[in-house]
């Protein structure tokens, strides 16, 4: 897949970073805080639709991919499942940014601090191998790095989970950690 197409895919997926802050507005949450709805339920109610919409928004991209004759050698189902795991990290980052932002503008600005390092460290613009050793190590923390490897692996090489399991596991670990941290921060901010 060409670098600019990969870049477009990254930007599309990274919109998740700013989608959640829009919904976590005080006026939306405040009336619910006095109902028996728990903070975990509130958190999941906010995150689940974003996750579903994120996965569904892959399909228009697949049409564009078809138009440009990019082959899909591997399993679409595996790609969707691993996309959902990647979105866990993106949504968790979105929740973290939202939790510390007072306005939408602040959230948008803060999201750039998360979005661009993730993009540059993912290897989509510059190969990871060409980066200094320190940045190469740092790129291991970017879930987008693993997602890029997975995307290229499934689309172009027809790779399955037996090949991509280490990337999937690393992405899942980062996603779960970020998700738990964002839940903790969300709970604290709400309370």
């Amino acid at each position, binding site marked *: 897949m060409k670098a600019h197409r990969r870049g477009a895919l990254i930007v599309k997926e990274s919109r998740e970073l700013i989608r959640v802050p829009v919904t976590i507005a005080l006026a939306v949450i405040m*009336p619910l805080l*006095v109902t028996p709805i728990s903070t975990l339920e509130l958190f999941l109610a906010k995150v689940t639709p974003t996750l579903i919409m994120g996965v569904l928004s892959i399909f228009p991209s697949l049409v564009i991919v078809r138009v440009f004759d990019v082959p899909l050698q591997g399993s679409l189902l595996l790609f969707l499942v691993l996309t959902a795991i990647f979105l866990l990290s993106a949504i968790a980052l979105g929740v973290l940014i939202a939790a510390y932002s007072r306005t939408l503008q602040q959230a948008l600005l803060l999201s750039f601090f998360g979005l661009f390092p993730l993009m540059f460290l993912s290897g989509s613009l510059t190969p990871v191998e060409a980066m200094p050793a320190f940045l190469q190590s740092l790129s291991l923390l970017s879930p987008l790095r693993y997602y890029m490897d997975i995307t290229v692996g499934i689309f172009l090489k027809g790779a399955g989970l037996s090949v991509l399991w280490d990337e999937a596991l690393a992405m899942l670990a980062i996603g779960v950690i970020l998700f738990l941290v964002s839940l903790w921060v969300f709970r604290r901010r709400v309370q």
Partner: protein
Amino acid sequence: MSSPEPIVAKGLGRQFGDNVVIEPLDVSVDRGQRVGIVGADGAGKTTLIRALCGLVAIDEGSARVAGVSSGGGSTALRRQIGYMSQRFSLYLELTPWENLRFFANAYGLAGGAARAAIDWAREVTGLTDIPDKLTGDLSSALRQRLALACSLLHRPRVLFLDEPTSGVDPVARYRFWRVIRELAASGMTVLVTTHYLEEAAYCDRLALMLDGRLLAHGSRSSLNHSLGLEADATVETLFTAAIEQAGTANSRALGP
């Protein structure tokens, strides 16, 4: 076995950073009472009510509402209380019906139980005709009654009303207080914050607050008596006398 006192606070205090918003205070409210928390803006009324609801953490002391600890804002507490704030109580982009159904579901009511609860709340609050438009397009008075209806759906034991009559015309305010009186008569305990001193006349007991301090609390007649005022003294006179007394006490404590 008798049910626990609806509201009991002992040494309840709260500060944000170095700013003491509520100095440690004791409050006790009996079943079916209407208690008015009266004070100027910034007196700590809203923080006190939110601390009792579990929306704001308590730094010092403790509070129990309907027998449940207010600390941490547990689900058990939320099932026992209703909360209405003039600012955040409704979803303005939903219709009134959608708001009612949404809050009924949020309180765990579904199907026939939700319909019965909505019918009851509409009847109690006088919401007979609900216009088919967005809540944000309703008049302040109608929105106020709708917010009250939403907070009553689960028939709470204790109802907290935070500045419920702000920006509402006098007639609507009178009607609103009539509903509150009926709710209290049915055994519901109501705690109201207001900066309209004349509205305090609708309450059984008053809590007078200034700069985070509870100056005095009790029935209007007992407060008038303790402050050496005439039995028919207005709430404004009562409040002013309480401030003056607190100022004198402070001066004595500080010395010459």
